[in-house]
């Protein structure tokens, strides 16, 4: 199936002369949740801005559902909903008016039943006649989501949708996103909460200094780059790793009470059994052991650090 968004050779140099994006090539698959990760200033918002028509690209092309975002902007933009990173709302408008405005702006006839459903789903229905300036930050964020959903987009960009949102609401939002995906909406989101990407995304793209340094299916990424560690709590502290264990990738904790063995999750043989045998041969006793797996966050941090 052809990609729903196809980005080729995309570059952006701002008027200030700063190059925010370099030769980005990326295909987003229909119906997936794609998480775009990257440190502050990596270029995530710039990339989203170009696809949505807010930022002019300096080079390259973008097709949204087969429509060029510049030449055929009417067709491409009517498919796309955007929830920007910045909270910007019309302070004096009511929730109801602003959501209906968005629907009209995107060329759709009024549909009060649909707007009602969206507001109810986002727990905004009680606030429909309230002026936006009287809402809390989290509510304003939801108003912006309601605006983006009002015209029934098939592609939804969420630029840090859960920034400044409480835990419960974040769960609600994840459910909302999953519900949208079930209805066939493609979702591209950015977030600084890596566990959010771990929880939600089908695929993950990592952008650093304007370059897309990795695009990978989430589980594959975690398998490929993930590491496991086995920690052994020793009966008697060691001052150094015994020579007989030098062929293992072992680390000794500072107090000498723990031995840490790091191994590759993809290897055929983890070597744990052999290591344990060797330990007993060497007369090293341990009282407890546990294993841990690196999270997406660990992977992300190490990726961005090596790219820096």
């Amino acid at each position, binding site marked *: 199936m052809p990609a729903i968004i196809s980005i080729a050779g995309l570059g952006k140099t701002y008027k200030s002369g700063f190059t925010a994006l370099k030769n980005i090539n990326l295909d987003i698959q229909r119906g997936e949740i794609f998480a775009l990760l990257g440190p502050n200033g990596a270029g995530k918002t710039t990339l989203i801005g170009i696809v949505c*028509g807010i*930022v*002019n690209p300096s080079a390259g092309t973008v097709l949204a559902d087969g429509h060029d975002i510049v030449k055929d902007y*009417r067709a491409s933009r009517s498919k796309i909903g955007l929830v920007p990173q910045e909270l910007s*709302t019309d302070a*004096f408008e009511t929730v109801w008016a602003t959501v209906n*405005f968005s629907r*009209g*702006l995107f*060329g759709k006839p009024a549909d009060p039943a649909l707007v009602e459903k969206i507001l109810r789903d986002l727990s905004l229905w009680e606030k429909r006649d309230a002026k936006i300036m009287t809402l809390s930050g989290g509510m304003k964020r939801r108003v912006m989501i309601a605006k983006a959903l009002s015209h029934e987009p098939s592609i939804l960009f969420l630029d840090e949708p859960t920034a400044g949102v409480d835990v419960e609401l974040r769960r609600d939002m994840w459910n909302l996103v999953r519900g949208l995906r079930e209805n066939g909406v493609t979702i591209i989101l950015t977030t600084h909460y890596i566990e959010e990407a771990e929880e939600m995304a089908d695929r993950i793209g990592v952008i650093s200094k304007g370059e897309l340094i990795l695009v990978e299916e989430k589980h594959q990424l975690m398998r490929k780059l993930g590491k496991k560690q086995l920690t052994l709590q020793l009966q008697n502290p060691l001052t150094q790793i015994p020579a007989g264990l030098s062929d293992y990738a072992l680390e000794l904790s500072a107090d000498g009470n723990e031995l840490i063995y790091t191994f590759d999750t993809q290897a055929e043989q983890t070597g744990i059994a052999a290591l344990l045998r060797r330990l007993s041969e060497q007369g090293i006793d341990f009282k407890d052991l546990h294993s841990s797996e690196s999270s997406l966050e660990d992977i992300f941090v190490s990726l961005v650090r090596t790219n820096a």
Partner: protein
Amino acid sequence: MNLYAIRAIYRFEMARTGRTLMQSIASPVLSTSLYFIVFGAAIGSRMGDVDSVNYGAFIIPGLIMLTLLTESTSNASFGIYLPKWSGTIYELLSAPVSWIEVVIGYVGAAATKSVILGLLILITARFFVDYHIEHPFWMAGFLVLTAVTFSLFGFIIGVWADGFEKLQVIPLMIVTPLTFLGGSFYSISMLPPLWQKIALFNPVVYLVSGFRWSFYGVSDVNAGLSFGMTLGFMLVCLGIVWWIFRTGYRLKN
């Protein structure tokens, strides 16, 4: 044509006008009344007729133009500056709308408000002086054309401005002086010969003169020329607006 978008923008802007209805209506009505008391009754009673029109009646077209120009410019400039300032412009830029639709929505709403204000002044004037309108069709034509043209002009100012001061400086420093010097309160023929020539470089002279002609059938410059000049200015504004959207000037990064 994205008609739903035009309607959404137009309604949004008219709702904004509606929220400030009292001040929008009260201030021009009040200031017009003051003009009539000061110029019409107090000073006008000591003045002879101008171009054989009673002075109080003579200043009506100029007063309407004064309001039309300042209100159109400030309204339209504020209308497009506000979303730029608050950041909600993102939605306009990401929507499937062409520049024509955006302009019809914003400029249409600003011009509508100005025309309403112009008519209000006309009604208010009735309480102070008698006047007649010789060419009502042309009067309406000048009214609408001027409102649209200066709303376009205001739209450009709103896109160009990157601060509230700039938003106000053009109406204050350019539009108001040009209107006062444009023969709102006097006939150009009352000026010394040299100043009469200089006055012809002031575009507002053509507007006021043409508008006054539609009331009383007398004018400083040919009415056709007036209409042509206004139309020309509108086309220039349209061209600039088209260029703004094509390049994204001060709207996009």
